[in-house]
C-alpha cells in the first residue's frame, strides 16, 4: 500500500513536470540572449537578460497589442455582465409569460458556434461601419458571452430565498432598487465566476480579430503575435518573450482566481 502511494505521487509529479516543462523552457529562454538560445536550447540563464522583453515591447509594438487586448477584453466582459445581469434576474426569479421560451432562447446560445457566422458578422459590422474597429470586436465578444452569463447568473438568482425581495418590497423599495441594492450584491460570486471565465477565451481569441482587424495599431495580442512570429522569425529569445507576455496575464489571473475558474469549468458537474 505504501508503495502504491509512492507510485501514485510519482505519477502525479511526473505529469506535473510534463505540463510545466514547456512553459519553464519558454520562460528561461526568454531571459537569455538570442545567440545563446540558438546554440544551446537547453540551458539555465547565466544572468537574467531582459532585453528581449524590451525588443518585443517597443520594437514589435507589444505595448499596443497588450493595451488593445486589455481594452477590448475588459469592455466586452463589462458589457456582457451589464446586460446579462438584469436579464438573468428576471428570468431566474420571476414566472413570466414566455419566460420559459426566453430562457430556452438564451440557453440555445450555449450550443451555437459563433464563429461559423463570421461572414454575416463581417458584413453586419461593415454596414455599421465597425470593421477594423475595437468597438465592433467588443460587441461581438459581449454578445457571444450572453448565453453563458445568463445561464450561470440565472441559476444563482434562482437559489436565493424568496423572502428577500418580499421584505424589501414591504419596506417600499421599487423594482430597480430591489435589483441593484438587494439582489446584485448577493450574486457577487456568480458575477466573479462569469467575469473570470469569460475573460480567458476572449483574451485568447484569434479568429475574430484575424478576420475583422486590419490596422496593426488596433491588433489584439493573438493577431499581433502572428505578425510578430512572421517578422522576428530568427530572434527566438524575443519570440519566447512575446509568448510570455501573451500568457502572463492569464497565469496571474488563474493564481488569483483559481476558485472561480474551477467553478466555471465544472459548472453543472457533481453536486
Amino acid at each position: 500500500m505504501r508503495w502504491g502511494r509512492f507510485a501514485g505521487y510519482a505519477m502525479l509529479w511526473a505529469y506535473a513536470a510534463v505540463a510545466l516543462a514547456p512553459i519553464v523552457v519558454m520562460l528561461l529562454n526568454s531571459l537569455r540572449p538570442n545567440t545563446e538560445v540558438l546554440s544551446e536550447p537547453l540551458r539555465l540563464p547565466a544572468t537574467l537578460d531582459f532585453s528581449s522583453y524590451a525588443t518585443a515591447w517597443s520594437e514589435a509594438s507589444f505595448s499596443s497589442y497588450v493595451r488593445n487586448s486589455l481594452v477590448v477584453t475588459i469592455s466586452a466582459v463589462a458589457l456582457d455582465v451589464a446586460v446579462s445581469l438584469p436579464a438573468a434576474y428576471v428570468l431566474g426569479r420571476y414566472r413570466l409569460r414566455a419566460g420559459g421560451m426566453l430562457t430556452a432562447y438564451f440557453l440555445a446560445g450555449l450550443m451555437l458556434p459563433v464563429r461559423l457566422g463570421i461572414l454575416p458578422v463581417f458584413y453586419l459590422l461593415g454596414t455599421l461601419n465597425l470593421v477594423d474597429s475595437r468597438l465592433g470586436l467588443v460587441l461581438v465578444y459581449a454578445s457571444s458571452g450572453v448565453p453563458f452569463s445568463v445561464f450561470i447568473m440565472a441559476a444563482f438568482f434562482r437559489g436565493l430565498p424568496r423572502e428577500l425581495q418580499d421584505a424589501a418590497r414591504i419596506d417600499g423599495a421599487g423594482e430597480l432598487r430591489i435589483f441593484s441594492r438587494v439582489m446584485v450584491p448577493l450574486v457577487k460570486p456568480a458575477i466573479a465566476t462569469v467575469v473570470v471565465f469569460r475573460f480567458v477565451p476572449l483574451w485568447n481569441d484569434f479568429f475574430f480579430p484575424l478576420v475583422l482587424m486590419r490596422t496593426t495599431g488596433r491588433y489584439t495580442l493573438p493577431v499581433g503575435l502572428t505578425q510578430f512570429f512572421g517578422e522576428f522569425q530568427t530572434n527566438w529569445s524575443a519570440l519566447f518573450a512575446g509568448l510570455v507576455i501573451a500568457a502572463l496575464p492569464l497565469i496571474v489571473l488563474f493564481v488569483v482566481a483559481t476558485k472561480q475558474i474551477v467553478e466555471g469549468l465544472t459548472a453543472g458537474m457533481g453536486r
Partner: protein
Amino acid sequence: MRWRIAVWFVLPAFLLYTLFTVYPLLSALANSFWRWQGTARGEFAGADNFTSLFTTFPLNQQLWPALWHTMAFFAGTMLVQNTVGLLIAVLLVELPVARRLLRTVYTVPYLIGGLVVGYLWSLLLSPVFGPVNASLRAVGLDSLARAWLGDPATALPVVILVNAWQYLGFPILLFGAALAGLAPEYTEAAKVDGANARQRFLRVTLPLLLPAIGVVSILTFIGSMNTFELVYSLEGAQGNQPTGPGGATDVLGLIFYRVAFQEGGSNAIGQSSALAVLLFAATFAVAVVANWLIRRREITLT
C-alpha cells in the same frame, strides 16, 4: 414584477445576443441556399452549394481528408484524456498532498490558449534549434530527432499530442468534480462485499463516472470540430509553414477559414455558408445523440 418593467430588464441582453449571435448564424443558414457573386446575391441555388463542396477542386480533394483528420483529432485526444486524464483525476482524489497546487499546474496549459500553445510548440519542435531535438541528441537518441511538424508521417500525431497536452487539465477538473460528487457508500458497500481496489474502480466507480466521461466526450467533439488556432500556429493556414506537411494536418475548422477567406472564389459566401451549416448540423446531431445515450444510461444505473 410587472411585464412592462421586466421587458426593460431583458431587452438589452436580448438585442445584443440576437443581433450579433443569432442573426449572423441565421443569415449564414439562409446564404447557404443562394448562389453568390462576391457580395451580390444571385439566384436560388437549392442544394447546389452543398453538393459543390464535394465536387469542385480543390475542396473535393481536401474535405474528406480533413474530416478524417478531425476524427483522428477527436479520437486521439479522447484516448489521452480517458486514460492519463482519468488516472490523474483518480490519483488526485486518493492522494491529498499538494492537491491544489498540482491541479493548478495541470490547468495552466489549458488557460494560455491554442495560439500561444501552438507557437510555443512550433519553437520547441523546430528541426534545427528546437529544444526537443536537442534533448533527444543530448541523451544519444540522435536517430529520433526529426522535423516533427514538417514530416507528413509525424505532423498529425504531434499536433494531436500537443492538443491533448493543452487540454488535459480540463478533464482532470471535470472528472475530479464528478468523483467528489459520488457518494462514498457505493465503494464502501463494495469493499464490505470483499471487492478489491481494481474491482471497486472498474465495477463501481467507472460506471458511475460514465456521465462525466460522456460530457467530456461531447465537449471534446465540439472542440475538435472547431479546431483552428492550434493548427494555424503550428502549421500555418495552408499547412505549409515553414516547411510543412502539405495537407497532412488540414482539419475542418481550417478548411472553413480557407473557403471563406482564401480559396472560395466568387461563390465564397455560398460555399462557406454551406460548409458552416454542415459543420453545425453534424456537431449538433452528434451532441444530441450522445447526450441522449448518456441520459438513458444514467437512468438504467440508478
